[in-house]
């Protein structure tokens, strides 16, 4: 059985239907990419998954537990961490406080300290700036903080929303390297990206979303060569 199983999920904003019955699955250890144009429903999917938006119909089952009726603050504890679009770090708090908030659901002091060390090793710049107010970090550093903050909950699965948005090409490559290293550590990744080329190059499988429906799915290596995908999303 898959780690995450989404079935016939529909989500509305008022009367507007944003997701029109999508189904997909994520297996443990995979990197899954969700690609599609602006307004296709990628962010909506992630928000519904982590409980920020309510589902109208359908189900989301994570490790055997139904998530559509679970409040957001409990979903983190079950092992899903969310790196939101636009980073959404706590701008007025220090880097250290942001990381501590990432571990909010945990009470194992030693484990938290251990993970903090790991995150500093992965993102040395965060350690250099740990007493700095997060709002003063550069865009790339803020993205790293958002990722580090999510990892502080010691998640089984991380969902990431446009982690490369607004970053320079060098930083984009750096972010994708980090995603690969997160997967290597055994954490499952569900990645939403507009940079379809990069996303497909690191993903195992991918789903293509178009106006609230999944129109294509398959192995990332197949999709990257698919005629339609190349035309619509890779700009070729």
């Amino acid at each position, binding site marked *: 059985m898959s780690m995450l199983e989404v079935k016939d999920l529909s989500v509305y904003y008022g009367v507007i239907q944003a997701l029109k019955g999508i189904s997909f699955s994520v297996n443990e250890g995979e990197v899954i990419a969700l690609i599609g144009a602006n307004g296709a429903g990628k962010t909506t999917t992630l928000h519904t998954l*982590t*409980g*920020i938006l309510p589902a109208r119909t359908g189900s989301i089952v994570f490790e055997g537990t139904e998530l559509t009726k679970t*409040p*957001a*603050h*409990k979903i*983190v*504890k079950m092992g899903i*961490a*969310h790196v*939101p679009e636009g980073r*959404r*770090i*706590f*701008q*007025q*708090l220090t880097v250290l*406080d942001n990381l*501590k*908030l*990432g571990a*909010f*659901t945990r009470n194992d002091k030693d484990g938290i300290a251990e993970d903090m060390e790991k995150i500093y090793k992965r993102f040395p710049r965060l350690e250099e700036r740990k007493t700095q107010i997060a*709002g003063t970090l550069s865009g790339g550093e803020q993205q790293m903080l958002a990722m580090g*903050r999510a990892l502080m*909950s010691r998640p089984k699965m991380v969902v990431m929303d446009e982690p490369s948005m607004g970053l320079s090409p060098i930083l984009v490559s750096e972010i994708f390297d980090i995603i690969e290293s997160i997967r290597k550590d055994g954490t499952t990744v569900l990645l939403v990206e507009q940079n379809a080329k990069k996303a497909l190059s690191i993903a195992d499988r991918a789903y293509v979303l178009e106006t609230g429906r999944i129109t294509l799915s398959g192995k990332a290596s197949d999709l990257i060569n698919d005629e339609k995908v190349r035309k619509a999303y890779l700009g070729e």
Partner: protein
Amino acid sequence: MAFLDYLINGISLGSIYAVIALGYTLVYGIAKMLNFAHGDVIMVGGYVIFTMMSNVGLNSYVSVLIAMAACTVLGITIEKIAYKPLRQSTNLAVLITAIGVSYFLQNIALIIFGEKPVTFKSVIDLPKITLFDGQIVIKSEAIASIIVSVVIVVGLSLFVNKTKSGRAMLAVSEDKDAARLMGINVNRTISLTFAIGSGLAAIAGALLCSSYPVLSNTTGAMPGIKAFVAAVFGGIGSIPGAMVGGLLIGVIEILGRAYISPQLADAIVFAVLIIVLIVRPTGILGKKVNEKV
């Protein structure tokens, strides 16, 4: 010597405003609403203390503790019943509801305790301090108000900045959805904020009624508004700002009353507020809010 006397009175009154202002500032910072019923919770606290001391015959400090518990429960209840259902509504709807809650509390008190003000017996039973051969007499209530407010401001700052629950409050204050994604229960955090603010209102009620011992159903209204002015003056959302704003408003009010005009004292307070807001719209210690684009 008269000036020193006025100054001490102003600082003492300002300390009480500061404790009330903290309630406004906390709730505004975290729930993003102006709880105009906050002043009336002070009045409720005053009546609980009065009843416990005069009718039940309890010790004054025990009475204050009971009032704190009662006001905490009242604050949480008000939030649950009146404000929580309006979480998604416009600010104006919440503001009008808060004014409604304010009148509701005043009228309930009117029904229970009648319109005749009662004389409040001070909860502080300590000797006064005499300085300069009796030229300056500081009432124990004044000293207690100052000490209590300093302890509360320091304690609250430590709580907010050093504890997990405090950090959750800061996170909710900045970004509710991001806080949810950290595993923070936003509703519970808002409840906690109202609980703390209302508990502080009970302490403010004890201090206020001990210094100015006439208690009626509208006792909380004017100090509530002035403390709100103090919170805005100091920078709403800021804990040290509430203290600075409270002290300044208290001192301005007492000095204004003594040297300019007793009738104009309140007007002076508001005039100073208007000037400060023109020169520095975020208040003295207020942070510049970076609206997200």
